[in-house]
């Protein structure tokens, strides 16, 4: 097989997509992920495609087991995304999706920080079209906020890499750590893309505003590229354990009260990233394996969940919990797919989340992070509550909305079917995934003790839901906007900007008015004295002229004499 950077290949191959139409385009787009997968599969470990620029070695294709795991799952996500969006006519989304996936794959094989930066920014620029393609005013606003924040992350990365280059003389993308200022800046850049707490809200703002198909693509790449970058650069950085623990816990509270079901999924995506960040922070072989495995399973089940909600949005025209219910009658296959995704994210035994998330929890326990372990366990129960139960329940069951629609288009069903098979397949036969992880795995997920404790946790979480529903304590879905950190720039920042603008304009107006009045008075004075009726313009009698000349002469003489003495 050719040793060509698979990411670059996909980016270049997106060009013909702009002109191809119909079945030809479909074949081309379906073939690309397959070819990319084959390339990654046959790539030998090591660095290929090194070139020298800026006196530094750029490594366009650095291959090891960590980059390969992410490369595989990105290609799988692209393949699913292509099938899912086959019915979409205009090429914009197809081209954007292909370039976006190519950039993300390019980034995980980048061996130096400059190449990483280029791909990093390309993911931002390509992906924004998936939001813009929605065509609504809300989407336009969200897309612009998304673009500013994503490009901002890239700018921080660039600043960090320059500082680091200065500090260490190297731009190699290996373990970075927090020793220098460059390392801190780069962590901040990664943290924005990974949706760290307080840097997270672009995710819940942008993803629910993208097209039904675009959100599926978005959910796979950006944040997991950041997880890969963290695993590469900051494995074992203890701060990440706490950051990750906070990330698993706080989004689930927002998820409980959110009405837009795709936004609920965006919050639970944030919570799942927290588990991976904890794994990276712990940094042991088991923890890093767990983080990589969880990224792998998560990309597939999250895409599956977004696909099911995308199908609902496509057919019903909304994914607000208040407007849905009873859809299992019209969309039985979509319902089934959603339940498989829900079971996977909830980490039910025999589903994919179980065999990956438990590695991270076990790693936390082995390293005696008791509090963090407790938080992760709480978040596990919580994620079942809002993603496992709330999403399928309010969309497909609950109170029948009376809405009857057609089942999802066939290509969507095929994509959901493949994703469902993968979720169950990985859950039942974890050894295939374990074999491609960065380190050797001697972890056994299926022990009777572990299965029992997980099933207890989940069933009692379901019991809590049932009791709360039947006693009427469960908060009803309400049409509303819930504030999050986006309030600071969408409202406070806007107000501050408006206030500053008003202040500047009043100060400017004051100065302007003052200077206008002054110049007006000056001009009027001039006019009064020099104008046609002005004192200076009058025709004066000759006598007065002589008088003035005499006064001048006297003054002159006076000064002359003063000078003599």
């Amino acid at each position, binding site marked *: 097989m050719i040793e060509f950077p698979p990411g670059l290949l996909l980016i270049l191959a997106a060009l013909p997509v702009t002109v191809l139409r119909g079945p030809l385009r479909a074949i081309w787009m379906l073939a690309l992920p397959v070819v990319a997968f084959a390339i990654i599969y046959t790539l030998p470990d090591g660095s290929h495609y090194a070139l020298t620029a800026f006196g530094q070695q750029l490594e366009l294709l650095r291959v090891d087991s960590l980059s390969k795991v992410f490369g595989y799952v990105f290609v799988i996500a692209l393949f699913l995304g292509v099938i899912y969006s086959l019915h979409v006519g205009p090429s914009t989304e197809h081209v954007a999706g292909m370039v976006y996936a190519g950039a993300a794959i390019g980034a995980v094989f980048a061996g130096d920080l400059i190449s990483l930066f280029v791909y990093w920014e390309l993911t931002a620029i390509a992906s924004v079209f998936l939001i813009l393609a929605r065509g609504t005013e809300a989407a336009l606003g969200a897309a612009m906020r998304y673009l500013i924040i994503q490009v901002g992350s890239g700018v921080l990365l660039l600043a960090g890499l320059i500082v680091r280059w200065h500090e260490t003389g190297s731009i190699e993308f290996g373990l970075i750590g927090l020793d220098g200022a460059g390392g801190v800046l780069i962590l901040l850049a990664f943290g924005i893309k990974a949706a760290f707490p307080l840097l997270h809200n672009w995710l819940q703002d942008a993803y629910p505003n993208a097209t039904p198909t675009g959100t599926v693509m978005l959910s796979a790449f950006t944040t997991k590229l950041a997880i890969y970058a963290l695993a590469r650069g900051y494995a074992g950085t203890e701060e990440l354990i706490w950051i990750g623990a906070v990330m698993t816990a706080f989004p689930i509270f927002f998820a*409980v009260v959110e009405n837009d079901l795709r936004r609920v999924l965006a919050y639970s995506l944030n919570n799942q990233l927290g588990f991976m960040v904890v794994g990276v922070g712990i940094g042991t072989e088991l923890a890093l394996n767990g983080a990589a495995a969880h990224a792998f399973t998560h990309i597939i089940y999250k895409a599956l969940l977004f696909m099911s909600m995308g199908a609902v949005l496509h057919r019903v025209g909304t994914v607000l919990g208040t407007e849905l219910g009873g859809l299992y009658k019209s969309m039985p296959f979509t319902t089934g797919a959603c339940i498989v995704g829900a079971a996977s994210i909830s980490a039910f035994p025999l589903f994919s989340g179980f065999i990956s998330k438990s590695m991270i929890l076990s790693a936390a326990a082995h390293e005696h992070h008791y509090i963090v372990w407790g938080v992760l366990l709480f978040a596990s129960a919580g994620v079942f509550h809002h993603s496992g139960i709330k999403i399928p329940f309010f969309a497909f069951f609950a109170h029948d909305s009376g809405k009857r629609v057609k089942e999802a288009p066939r290509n969507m069903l095929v994509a959901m079917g493949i994703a469902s098979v993968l979720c169950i397949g990985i859950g039942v036969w974890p050894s295939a995934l374990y074999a491609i992880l960065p380190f050797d795995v001697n972890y056994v997920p299926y022990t009777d003790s572990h299965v*029992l404790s997980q099933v207890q946790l989940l069933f009692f*979480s379901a019991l809590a839901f049932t009791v709360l529903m039947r006693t009427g304590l469960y908060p009803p879905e309400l049409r509303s906007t819930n504030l999050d950190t986006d309030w600071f720039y969408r409202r406070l920042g806007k107000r501050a900007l408006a206030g500053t603008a008003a202040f500047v304009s009043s100060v400017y107006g004051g100065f302007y008015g003052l200077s206008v009045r002054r110049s007006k008075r000056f001009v009027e004075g001039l006019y009064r004295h020099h104008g046609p009726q002005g004192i200076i313009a009058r025709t004066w009698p000759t006598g007065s002229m002589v008088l003035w000349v005499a006064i001048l002469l006297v003054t002159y003489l006076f000064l002359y004499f003063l000078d003599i003495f």
Partner: protein
Amino acid sequence: MSEEPRIVDPNAPGEKGWLERKENVTKIAWALYAVCAVLVLLDFVIHRHAEMGADGFYGFYAIYGFVGSVGLVLVAKHVLRPLVMRSEDYYDD
């Protein structure tokens, strides 16, 4: 988007599914209660390999899952919602 959804009366004859009948929902709830009871009893049969002490107690995961979930929902409902909920068109100005 495809065509508008067809709206039917969910209470019309033939539209009500098995799942929407009250008595069936009660049956499902009781089945869940029974499963939960069995799961707790299994703690006495299966020796659980405790990772860190606390989780070795009988019913630890059951209690943790139940209390954690109820706490999550009530805090979200009574603390978070009053703090963050605004009208749907809050940002549209």
